[in-house]
């Protein structure tokens, strides 16, 4: 039964003439202390974003001290030679600023956001944190305890638990990448202020750091500002650290992390593949989007919009670590949650989608829509200063040229259906995927075993 509408209908309108937009080109310079600075004026963006990259990657953590980079990153905002921990937090918030810091495989990253009118004061605080962090015994001890308290919360989160298991499965046990980024109970418990200071002295210096400043810089003398703040930070010269290659075992297999009684199964299906240095990257981005970029992509068209097994399943590629010589890698993965009784059928459909893609390829129409979306959303995606700063910082962290993103948009537009298909199929080969399922093993193990997607093992949740 349908209902006749009484409105007057018009044909679908045609697009108007597009206004040109390009990913902003930053201006690059170096301070006297060796600090690299990228700046970018974005009119109207009253909240300025500052990103600082430190060449202190997780693989530089001393053996047995996983998590020391994380504790150091957090300790930057816990007091300096001028302010106690409480005062430092108060001063930052008085500027209306937020400061986040986290440690990841490529290095430590600090992200400051502050209204342009208070940039000077916030930059001074940021510079103090980098130049003269207090690393007081009691504050580090508190951060360590706090971190230990966080671990059970992470293990209880299905998506985080899945990520932890996938890293453990994919990478050799000797590789830092196989272990949790922020450390385990055993390693974190050993960290003290001396360990943090040693790590800081060894790996943090302006000569191997980069600052990215983006926002409405009208009326701001950024050179003078930087000279008084980050430019006054001193440290010895050093070469950037060599980046070790990434290796992974993607033999097709299934690991079930048992959560008895779970009403859904968290899926994380992944392997390691090309990063942005590889020529295949644009085609891989395109193919991955067609596979699982949105709810009209192939996976959700079946799993969500036809079957209703899930709220959404996504395929994505996320750079783990890149090297100047191109030996870096990205995590290529499919993730989502499906209800427990439909776990087997959902995985069967997922594999059928992958097999069909390999057998029949993408259509030109899919490729066109994907390009139009990926290229077309750029001006929306990069409206804020924070989004631009983050991508510029990613480029630096991944040893890419400053015009990488701008070039990528041109390459995406020039990538054809055949290339996108080939890239998607080699990114997600049906027999080279490691599947982690966080769910009720008693209910899902048997149905998953019958699928033939690899040997199934069950591990306890904790």
């Amino acid at each position, binding site marked *: 039964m349908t*209902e006749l509408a009484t*409105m007057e209908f018009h044909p*679908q309108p045609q697009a108007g003439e597009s206004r040109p937009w390009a990913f902003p080109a930053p201006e690059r310079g170096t301070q006297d202390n060796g600090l690299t600075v990228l700046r970018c004026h974005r009119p109207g963006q009253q909240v300025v974003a500052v990103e600082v990259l430190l060449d202190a990657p997780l693989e530089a953590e001393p053996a047995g001290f996983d998590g020391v980079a994380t504790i150091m990153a957090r300790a930057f905002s816990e007091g300096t030679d001028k302010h106690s921990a409480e005062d430092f937090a108060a001063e930052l918030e008085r500027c*209306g600023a937020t400061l986040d810091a986290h440690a990841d495989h490529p290095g430590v990253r600090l992200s400051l*956001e502050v209204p342009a009118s*208070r940039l000077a004061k916030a930059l001074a605080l940021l510079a103090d944190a980098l130049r003269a962090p207090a690393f007081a015994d009691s504050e580090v001890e508190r951060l360590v305890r706090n971190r230990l308290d966080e671990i059970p919360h992470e293990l209880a989160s299905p998506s985080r638990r899945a990520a932890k298991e996938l890293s453990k499965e994919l990478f050799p046990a000797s590789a830092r990448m196989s272990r949790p980024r922020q450390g385990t109970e055993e390693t974190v418990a050993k960290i003290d202020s001396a360990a943090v200071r040693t790590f800081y002295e060894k790996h943090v210096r302006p000569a191997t750091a980069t600052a990215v400043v983006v926002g409405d810089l009208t009326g701001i003398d950024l050179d003078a500002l930087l000279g008084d703040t980050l430019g006054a930070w001193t440290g010895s010269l050093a070469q950037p650290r060599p980046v070790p290659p990434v290796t992974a075992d993607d033999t097709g297999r299934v690991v079930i992390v048992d959560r008895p009684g779970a009403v*859904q199964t968290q899926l994380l299906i992944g392997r390691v593949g090309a990063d942005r240095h590889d020529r295949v990257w644009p085609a891989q981005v395109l193919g991955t989007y067609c596979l699982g970029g949105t709810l009209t992509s192939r996976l959700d068209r079946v799993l969500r919009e036809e079957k209703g097994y899930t709220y959404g399943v996504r395929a994505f590629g996320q750079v783990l670590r890149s090297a100047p010589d191109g030996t870096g890698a990205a995590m290529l993965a499919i993730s989502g949650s499906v209800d427990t009784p439909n776990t087997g059928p959902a995985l069967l459909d997922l594999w059928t989608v992958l097999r069909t893609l390999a057998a029949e390829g993408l259509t030109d129409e899919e490729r066109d829509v994907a390009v139009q979306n990926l290229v*077309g959303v750029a001006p929306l995606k990069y409206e804020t200063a924070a989004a631009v700063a983050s991508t510029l910082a990613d480029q630096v962290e991944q040893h890419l040229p400053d015009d990488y993103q701008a070039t990528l948009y041109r390459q995406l537009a020039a990538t054809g259906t055949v290339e996108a298909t080939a890239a998607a199929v080699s990114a997600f080969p049906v027999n080279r995927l490691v599947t982690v399922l966080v769910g009720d093993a008693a209910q899902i193990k048997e149905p998953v075993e019958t699928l033939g997607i690899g040997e199934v093992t069950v591990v306890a949740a904790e």
Partner: protein
Amino acid sequence: MPMGHTATAQAGSGGLTATEHRLANGLRVVLSEDRLTPVAAVCLWYDVGSRHEVKGRTGLAHLFEHLMFQGSAQVKGNGHFELVQGAGGSLNGTTSFERTNYFETMPTHQLELALWLEADRMGSLLAALDDESMENQRDVVKNERRQRYDNVPYGTAFEKLTALAYPQGHPYHHTPIGSMADLDAATLEDARAFFRTYYAPNNAVLSVVGDIDPDQTLAWIEKYFGSIPGHDGKAAPRDGSLPDVIGEQLREVVEEEVPARALMAAYRLPHDGTRACDAADLALTVLGGGESSRLYNRLVRRDRTAVAAGFGLLRLAGAPSLGWLDVKTSGDVEVPVIEAAIDEELARFAEEGPTAEEMERAQAQLEREWLDRLGTVAGRADELCRYAVLFGDPQLALTAVQRVLEVTAEEVQEVAKARLRPDNRAVLVYEPVSLEAAKHTEDADPPEDPEAEATVEATDENEEAAK
């Protein structure tokens, strides 16, 4: 002493302006031109949310929101998503207690498409709505509920606290996601009736913000929306007013398989749109917003009894707002230890009020949050709709930050004294149990009603749910 201050001469509004229009069918339109970036945001707020739902049909407003993406007279199946994304746009829809919103951000030259799409479903959804999409989206929404609430630790805390804070039968007693039983019970005819009742041009506000030609935009809006008939099918929502204070401490202890003890609470606070609500926002920020707040300093830094401690504000216009406390305990610390410290801090704050420096910090934080929200065309479009729908005047969005900056320390102290009291809160205590015990508890005590903001496509954002 007034503590207001501004970061910039044009703080918050950034010199922004908006114009208002009304079509003959009652559709209200707000336009705001900003040519800096070649993008335009379209935002459509329907004045219907979970508060309009009736007993036995919780979750219907949100389930219906999903159906709005399943096609209309001229748009096939998933065409709405496909066309917007294929045009280089982004889109979503969300449902909260008080409204349902739909939004597209488009490259400027595709603005007309977004207007055409929104008009098509406003005027002709029922031409496409069928059993197949109803059954499919029912399953999708049930999986949304499982993913966001049922399958995560503390996931149902918000709906439990809401159910405590608003009495049985109150329109805000249940949250937008709805209960599994009610989602199962909803029929296609319910969905049709819902559309006929609430989806009318005179029950909506449309805002368009960004790189637009206002005259051309208005002409397109008239062309696409102008012929959709308005109607007065909608009954007023049930009255959400309640006494200023609860009058007793409501309490529920949840024994579940969670990683740590937790203390959560909801305080009954002034309605959104009032100066007292802004004062409450500042009070909560001083007490529990960020890492220089009183509760963070006391519980996390000094006593070291908590992993995290913070306050959030859920602003509501049709019922008292909720001040949202969330503390996760450290190690083996017992809840009463935390509770005593919180009560001590709240009592001291009510006694002394904020210091001048605390006011400055809290106002600076809220000001930055406003700059963030108004810094994108989509954020601005949403705020313009919010003020138009809930308070009848979109211009209020552009001056909201000034109002926060005008609040005095005395007003902050006054609202804290009147509202942040033990007899004005609902408390939820989590006690972790082993798996065996948890199963037993479930059998003995089936889960209660439903919860927060729900959305058509998974995103990281969860704007309505208090942090």
